[in-house]
């Protein structure tokens, strides 16, 4: 048990590893003043009281190569600067200046250390021509195996993942769940039917995101469902892509959809193509396709940036039904304004479950909703703690409040 505790504390950087001299702050018995980065020795000058509690410790929760120096302010008021000097151990005495920080600072991170070496530091209080310094004991940096600053994220991820897996498990066992109607996804069938009746193509734009982005993955899932319907009705589906990896996935999705509905002969390879990775060149090319082909329906699903409005407004001028969806918050207002239906954020992620009605996917949606309930409770709790911590005698609550912050 003690061993485990020691390992945990070691990983957190709260204790020094074996073989490292504990850091002992020293009070100055002479006066130090430095210029530039040359080796410095403390010259005689007007004495001011040095900073106290000067400590050097390995910076916790990092990958090594960093030592943090902390100090309490000099008893002399109005210290203008603190200069940080460093010397390698055992070559102590040859200190070089690292940096100078303003007098209100109480710590400094030296991010340029060698994990194999030990260092001593001086913190020199500077006020006009006067100075005074204190030295730290020897310290060494070393890497950690766990970032305890991310513990809150780990716990939240585990809780939300547990909820999602729990509901997927119940869905697998046959439990039926209710999901609310999403107008944009209900309109998919209608929009494909409209294109078929009009004898016009459908354009599916998957944005400028990479294949690693959840919105692009969701867009590909919707593409699969749309491709199945267009294959059934023999409606042309044009899929211009801006990312070569997304292009290869889109091609497979459309091809597979045609095979699945028993219409492999209607698959046209040249309707799914790569255009360019240049944002505005892509927008110009897709605008051209929309204007030339006059599609009956335009899907804009995935990740979009400034080209969102260019695409959506051009699409609106062609008279097509436009169904958009993105998790790029800043582009949502443009889509809501210019498109007939907009899937907002998570609605886009829910599309594959909604369209396919697969119980496992629907189970994950319910898990997500319970995750939101947990987040809502956490937000209310954190807000209450924040307000309470402002009250007299309850400032200790800020520790709990701070736990919610990331860093």
């Amino acid at each position, binding site marked *: 048990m003690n061993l485990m505790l020691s390992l945990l504390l070691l990983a957190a950087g709260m204790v020094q590893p074996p073989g490292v001299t504990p850091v002992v702050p020293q009070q100055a018995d002479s006066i130090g003043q430095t210029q530039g980065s040359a080796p410095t020795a403390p010259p005689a000058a007007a004495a001011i009281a040095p900073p106290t509690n000067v400590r050097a410790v390995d910076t916790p*929760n990092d990958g*090594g190569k960093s030592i943090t120096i902390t100090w309490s302010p000099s008893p002399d008021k109005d210290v203008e600067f603190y200069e940080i000097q460093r010397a390698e151990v055992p070559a102590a005495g040859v200190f070089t200046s690292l940096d100078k920080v303003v007098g209100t600072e109480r710590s400094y991170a030296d991010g340029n250390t060698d994990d194999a070496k030990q260092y001593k530091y001086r913190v020199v209080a500077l006020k006009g021509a006067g100075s005074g310094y204190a030295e730290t004991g020897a310290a060494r940096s070393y890497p*950690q*195996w*766990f*970032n305890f600053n991310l513990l809150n994220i780990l716990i939240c*991820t585990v809780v939300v*993942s547990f909820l*999602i*897996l729990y509901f*997927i498990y119940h869905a697998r066992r046959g439990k039926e769940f209710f999901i609310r109607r999403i107008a944009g996804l209900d309109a998919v069938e209608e929009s494909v039917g409209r294109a078929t009746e009009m004898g016009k193509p459908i354009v599916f734009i998957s944005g400028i995101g990479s*294949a690693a982005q*959840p919105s692009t*993955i*969701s867009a590909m*899932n919707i593409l*699969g469902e749309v491709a199945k319907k267009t294959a059934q009705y023999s409606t042309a589906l044009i899929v211009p*892509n801006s990312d*070569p*990896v997304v*292009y*290869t*996935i889109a*091609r*497979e*999705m459309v*091809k*597979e959809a045609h095979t699945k509905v028993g219409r492999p002969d209607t698959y046209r390879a*040249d309707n*799914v*193509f*790569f*255009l360019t990775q*240049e*944002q*505005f060149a892509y*927008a*110009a090319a897709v605008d051209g396709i929309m204007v030339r082909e006059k599609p009956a329906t335009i899907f804009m699903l995935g990740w979009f940036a400034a080209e969102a*409005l*260019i695409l*959506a*407004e051009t699409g609106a001028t062609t008279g097509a039904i436009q169904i958009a969806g993105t998790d790029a*918050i800043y582009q949502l*207002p*443009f889509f*809501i*304004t210019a498109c007939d239906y907009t899937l*907002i954020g*998570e609605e*886009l*992620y829910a599309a*594959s479950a909604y369209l396919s009605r*697969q119980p496992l*996917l629907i189970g*994950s*949606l319910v898990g*997500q909703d319970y*995750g*939101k309930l947990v*987040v809502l409770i956490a937000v209310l709790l954190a807000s209450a703690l924040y307000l309470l911590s402002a009250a007299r005698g309850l400032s200790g609550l800020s520790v709990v409040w701070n736990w919610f912050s990331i860093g």
Partner: protein
Amino acid sequence: MQRTIPLTICLVAGLVMIVQFFIPHPVSVGLYSVSNNWMRIIASFALVLGAGSLIIHHTIRLQRRQKGWPYSIVTLVGLAVAAVLGLGWGLRTGRPEDIIYRNIQVPLGAAMFSILAFYMASASYRAFRARNKEATILLIAAFVVMLGSVPIGTTIWTKIPIISEWVLTVPNMAAKRAIGFGIALGSIATALKIILGIERGWLGGEK
């Protein structure tokens, strides 16, 4: 087997990357760097497929004399010229490829970007028509925020910038954060479904 191998790779890589996120040790950082390099290598293979697709698509358009086929000539010539200049003289500053990039591609991109100003005007007109209760609230909020951002707003009433700030930092921020929570949870769920092989759309099908 065709499905099992990619699903296994996805499961292992997904779990390793989750664990890696919490470990700051150089071993973990190195692993992340290696995986990023692999992603770049795979993407470069896909780029070859992409370029092939572009050439085939425009060649077919030319052969069939489809509507707008002259643009396909521009695209194919542009692709060939850029490839020859880039491969022949390199990409450094002052080389032909760089000159073309800075003097043709960048201005063309800027021209497309500038069209946004006009599209914003037409989109604003569409958004701010007070057709129903929600659109009317949107119109009033937008009007107040716009007035709060210009000097005349203060001249009309000194409280307008304060109200504008409140609209942006309270109801607007609350809505943005709510969407953000949904997106974050949705991302976790999507990642889980992919890692566990429940969501298989990215493999090109459900089977």
